[in-house]
């Protein structure tokens, strides 16, 4: 395993949402980073908010924000948890929580991750293995590369483009 390849974490650290977008769409990542954001009037965004706000009222919900970069929904004694509306972009959600675990590890905190899909009554456990660490590192380097581009990555049709907030921007 190459877990010992040194990366300059301080220079690479970014927000969770950007790591997530890398797996959703590189173009979306670039646009979002440049402040070209779409108004969130979609019901889906609202739904996500409602879920995040109401689903875990019984638990001691502790949201934490580290370095203004990492905003974790729920932090428990030995696990962190993210709540997601659907698993349509499960891959992207997984890298995001892996990134949080990675970030915490840099701060000397080791935890496990859980993604909750309350709507589907499903939970997924996520552990930061050394492969996963490597995956996070590669993702971080890739984010950096994309954000250095002078213009947005080329348009490429994705199956979920029509549901993306940028659809009219990209394809109109």
């Amino acid at each position: 395993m190459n877990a010992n390849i040194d990366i300059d974490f301080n220079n690479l650290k970014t927000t969770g949402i950007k790591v997530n977008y890398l797996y959703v769409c590189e173009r979306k990542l670039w646009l979002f980073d440049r402040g070209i954001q779409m108004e969130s009037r979609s019901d889906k965004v609202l739904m996500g908010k409602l879920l995040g706000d109401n689903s875990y009222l019984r638990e001691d919900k502790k949201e934490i924000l580290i370095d203004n970069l990492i905003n974790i929904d729920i932090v428990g004694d030995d696990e962190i948890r993210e709540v997601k509306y659907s698993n349509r972009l499960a891959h992207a959600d997984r890298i995001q929580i892996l990134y949080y675990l990675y970030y915490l590890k840099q701060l000397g905190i080791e935890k496990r991750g859980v993604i909750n899909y309350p709507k589907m009554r499903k939970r997924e456990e996520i552990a930061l293995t050394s492969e996963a660490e490597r995956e996070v590192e590669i993702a971080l380097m890739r984010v950096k590369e994309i954000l250095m581009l002078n213009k947005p990555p080329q348009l490429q049709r994705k199956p979920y483009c029509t549901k993306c907030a940028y659809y009219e921007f990209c394809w109109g």
Partner: protein
Amino acid sequence: MGRPYYIFSNGRIKRKENTVYIENENGDKKAIPVEDIDTIHLYGEVDLNTKLLNFLSQQNKIVHVYNYYGFYAGSFMPRDRNVSGELTVRQVEHYLDPERRFFIAFSFVEGAMFHMIRNLREYKDTLEFQEKIKTELANASETKSINELMGCEGRARDAYYQAFNTILNNGFSIEKREKRPPGNPVNALISFANSMIYSTVLSEIYHTQLNPTISYLHEPRERRYSLSLDIAEIFKPLIADPVIFKLVNNNMIRLEDFDEDVNCCYMNETGRKKFLKEFDQKLTTTIKHRKLKRNVSYRTLIRLECYKLIKHLIGDELYTPFKAWW
């Protein structure tokens, strides 16, 4: 997404919880849930307070104000939440470089002239005017400076407005286009219509990260939101003028719908109401978008135009002005 509200009556607008109340002079109240509002256009004499403005700001709603004659006076726009430093820098970059500025400015002129000719094509005996506009479009593509470009555009517009005399019936005619102040009903109608396109475009620009003060065809100093003037060029003949033709030729608007004051002719309240009813209907009319494969309204077309301009500015896709294809 809400819709625009046009308020004619004198009275008061206020907030109570999450509802906006419009109260006229007789004390009649109308409640509008805030989600239902996109923009409020004020024509009457209206009192409002900071409690309302704070609320509208928080909800990201715009208020446009018009003066006694119905001409755009100014806007209340919520604190700008949609800024992109990157985009502003690129907007300026394209303004400062003469070639890049010209490319965008010419595109606006091209879109405007395309829609002028398209309008005239619907009417008999306008061929001569269409030819003049075509000639100016050809000339425009040969010019080198914004000044010359503006000259071509001005001459094309003169020919276009001359054609109004052929198009318009029922005793409406225009000798020449007079803006400030409009001297006759047709000029008054055009001015009011242009005011409405201007504020509608401004609302759409506001919902994007474009900086409305940096423009290409018009000089940024010409008016505060000069980018709105630029983009409006394409949409005046596409959206506003067909509404004018319809209202006049179907005898829906009459000379009684105009008032005169010293040396200014303007549309009165009944006239404005008739215009705005048709205008609003036009804005919400949908067409099937060829690329999006979705139905989009005329209003959305304006938003899409802003997006296309953003894509051009960030080096994503070259800008071509909207040209109605149907």
